[in-house]
C-alpha cells in the first residue's frame, strides 16, 4: 500500500499578509489589498503542495479566522457570542449562538457566500466542524435538548458538504477536537459518542466525497474501537497525543486512516525515517483501506515558514516510506 500525504487545516500567514492585514486593521491599508495578498499566498501554498506530491490539495484558509466563522457570518440567525480560547492554544474563536429558529428556513444553507471562504484556489479538501464539536462549543440553549440540536446541526453540515462537493471538493474533513479533548481530560459523558454517531448518521456519508472524522487535541486511544464503527469513510488520529500502541490494536479494514504523526504545533522537525517506519507499522497492523500521513492539525500555530518545513517533511517521509 502506498502512503499518501496532505495538509489538513489552516496554514500560517506570511510576513507580508500580516503586514497588510495589520495596516488594514489600523486604517492605514485596504481590505482589497488583504484579499489580493490572500490570493497570492494561497496560490503559492497550493503550488508548494503540488510540488510536495500531496494526494489532496488543502486550501490554507487565510481568510478564515476560526473554524466556525463561515457559519456565524453566513447562516441566517446564527450569531457570534463571546470570545473564547480555541482549546489549549493562544488562538480565539467566537462562540456560535445557534437558535432553533436558524434551522426552520431551509434555504439559508445554500448561500453561496459560505463557499467563497474556501475558493481562493482549487482545492480538494474542505474543512468543516464535526457536528459534535460545533454542538459542544456553541450556545444551543434554544433547543429542547442536545439530540434535537445535533440533528439540526448535522443537517446543516450535510447540506454544506453537499454544496462543497458540487463546487468540486472531493474530501470532507469533519474536524473533531472536542471528543479527543474531553477524553483526555476524563470528562467524556456516556452520551457523547451517541451524539456524535447521531450527527454522523446524517452528515457522515456524502455522495461524491470521502468523509474523514479528524480527531485532534487529545488522546483518543481509548475510543478507537468506537471510532472505527462510525458512519464515515475514514478517521484521523492525533498521534502526537495518542499512543501508537492504542491505535494498532484495531482493524481499519473498512476505513481510511489519516495519521497525524507530524506535530503541527512544534517547530521541532520529526525524523522522516521514523515517520515512515511508524506509518509502515500502522499499515501492517491496522490494514486500512488507504493510509495518509498529515500534521495532527493545521500548521497555523507556528507560521508560514514552519508550515512549509512540515510540508517538506511529509514529502520526505513519503519518499522514505516508498523506499522501505
Amino acid at each position: 500500500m502506498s502512503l499518501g500525504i496532505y495538509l489538513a487545516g489552516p496554514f500560517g500567514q506570511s510576513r507580508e499578509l500580516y503586514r497588510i492585514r495589520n495596516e488594514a486593521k489600523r486604517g492605514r491599508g485596504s481590505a482589497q489589498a488583504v484579499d489580493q495578498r490572500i490570493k497570492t499566498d494561497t496560490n503559492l501554498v497550493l503550488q508548494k503542495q503540488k510540488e510536495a506530491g500531496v494526494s489532496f490539495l488543502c486550501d490554507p484558509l487565510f481568510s478564515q479566522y476560526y473554524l466556525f466563522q463561515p457559519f456565524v457570518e453566513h447562516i441566517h440567525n446564527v450569531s457570534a457570542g463571546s470570545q473564547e480560547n480555541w482549546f489549549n492554544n493562544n488562538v480565539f474563536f467566537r462562540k456560535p449562538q445557534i437558535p432553533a429558529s436558524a434551522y426552520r428556513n431551509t434555504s439559508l444553507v445554500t448561500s453561496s457566500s459560505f463557499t467563497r471562504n474556501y475558493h481562493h484556489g482549487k482545492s480538494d479538501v474542505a474543512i468543516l466542524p464535526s457536528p459534535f464539536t460545533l454542538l459542544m462549543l456553541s450556545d444551543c440553549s434554544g433547543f429542547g435538548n442536545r439530540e434535537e440540536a445535533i440533528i439540526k446541526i448535522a443537517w446543516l453540515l450535510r447540506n454544506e458538504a453537499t454544496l462543497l462537493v458540487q463546487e468540486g471538493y472531493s474530501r470532507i474533513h469533519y474536524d473533531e477536537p472536542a471528543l479527543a479533548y474531553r477524553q483526555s481530560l476524563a470528562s467524556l459523558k456516556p452520551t457523547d459518542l451517541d451524539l456524535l454517531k447521531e450527527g454522523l448518521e446524517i452528515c457522515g456519508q456524502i455522495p461524491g466525497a470521502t468523509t474523514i472524522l479528524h480527531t485532534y487535541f487529545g488522546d483518543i486511544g481509548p475510543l478507537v474501537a468506537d471510532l472505527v464503527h462510525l458512519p464515515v469513510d475514514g478517521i484521523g488520529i492525533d498521534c502526537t497525543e495518542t499512543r501508537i500502541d492504542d491505535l494498532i490494536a484495531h482493524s481499519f479494514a473498512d476505513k481510511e486512516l489519516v495519521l497525524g504523526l507530524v506535530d503541527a504545533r512544534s517547530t521541532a522537525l520529526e525524523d522522516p525515517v521514523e515517520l515512515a517506519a511508524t506509518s509502515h507499522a500502522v499499515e501492517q497492523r491496522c490494514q486500512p483501506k488507504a493510509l495518509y500521513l498529515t500534521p495532527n492539525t493545521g500548521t497555523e500555530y507556528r507560521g508560514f515558514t514552519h508550515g512549509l518545513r512540515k510540508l517538506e517533511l511529509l514529502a520526505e517521509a513519503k519518499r522514505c516510506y516508498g523506499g522501505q
Partner: protein
Amino acid sequence: MVVNSLFLTYEVGSLPKLNARMKAFQKKPLSPEDEEELQTVSARAGLSPQDILELLRRPGKTGRRLTAEEKTAVINFNALLYVRLQEACCLDFVYDGEARRSEMYRHVAKDIAGFEDLPEMIRSRGPDSWRSSVCVAEPKLKEDSLAGLILDEFSQAQTSATQPLKVPLDDPYMIAVMSDNRYFLEKLRSVHVGEPKKLRYAAKRELVLALARNVIRPQVEALVASGAAWIQLDAPAATLDLEHIPILVEGLNECVAGTSGVKFSVHFCYPRRVSLIDKSGYELLFPHVLNLDPKIDHFSLELANADTYALDLAVFRQYADQRRFEIGVGVVDITLEKQLKGETETPEIVRRRIAQAVSVLGDEKLVYVAPDCGLRQLSLERAVRLYDVLVEGTELARRG
C-alpha cells in the same frame, strides 16, 4: 494622589501607539486624521504636540528616517502623553499605556537568552497576531537588559505621573504558553518515554519556573528597589491548559518570592467559559489560586466580553471564607469586533455591572474598576471613549 476611596479605577495595560508615530517610523506621510488624533489627545492630556508633530511630519516629507535620538524623543512623548491622558481621564492608577513596548510578549521575549524568534507573526484573534519564539536553551535575561526592559520605563512614568502607578509585567506562564517549548521537551523526552501528557506537563513546569526565576523575578526585584508600589502580573493564558493551572500558581509565587512592601495583582482574561468539562470560566482557577502567595491579593478580570457577571464572579464568593481577593471588575469590552460594530457601553451599563459585582462579592471594598484587558488593538479615539464611559459609570456607582 488617589482621592477616591471606593471603586478605584485603572487601566489594565496597553494603549494603541499613535498613528503618527507609526507612520513617521515607516517614513510615511501623515494624514490629516493622524495629525488630528495627535492634537486631540494631546489637548485632552494638556500637552502641546507642536514640536513632536513637526518631527513626525519630516520623514514623510523628506524621505529621511528619524535618527535614534529623534525616535527616542517621539517614544518619550508618546509615553508621557498616555500617562497624562489617563490622569486627564481621571483614572486613579495610571501607567504609560506600554508605549515603550512593542507588544507584551515580544517586549520580554526579545531580551531572553535562550529564545529565538519565529519568522512570522502568528494569528490569535481576528487580524491580531503575535511574534512567537522558540525556547532553545535555559531561558535567562540577557545581560544589562533590565534598564531597557523595565527600569527606564518605570523611572519615566514616575517622573511623569502625579497619580500612583500600577506597573504591568508578563507572568511566566503566559510567556511559556505563547512559546514553543522545544528545549525542555527535548531535555525531558527520555524521562517520559511514551507518556506525551506527562512530558508536556513536566516540560512546561520547568520552563515556567525558569522564566519566573531568571526573567520575571529580576524585574520584580528591580522595580521594588526603585519604589514600585503596585505590580500587576499579566496572566491572560491562565486557563488554557486545564490540567496545568498548578504550574501557573507555582510560577506566580516564584515571581514574588522574597519581596515585601509592594502590592501584587494578577490580570486574567478569556477564562475558557467553553471548557468542555464540568467547571468553566474563573471556576477553573479554583482551588489552585488559594495557594497563591498572600502578597497576591487582587485579580483584574475580563468580564464584559461574556457579560455574565453573576456567573463569572460566583466562585469568588463561594471561596470567600477561605480567601478573599480584591477584584478589578472589567466593565468595558475591548474586542475589535465591538469597535467595528460601533458598539460601546454606556455609563449606566458600567454602573449596573459594578453594582452586580458588589452584589455577588458582598463587599464593595473589594471592587476596583477596569477595562476587560489592554486596549492596544483599538483605535485611540475608542480607547479614550472607553475610559470616559468607565469613569462616568464608576462615578454613578459611587453615588449609589
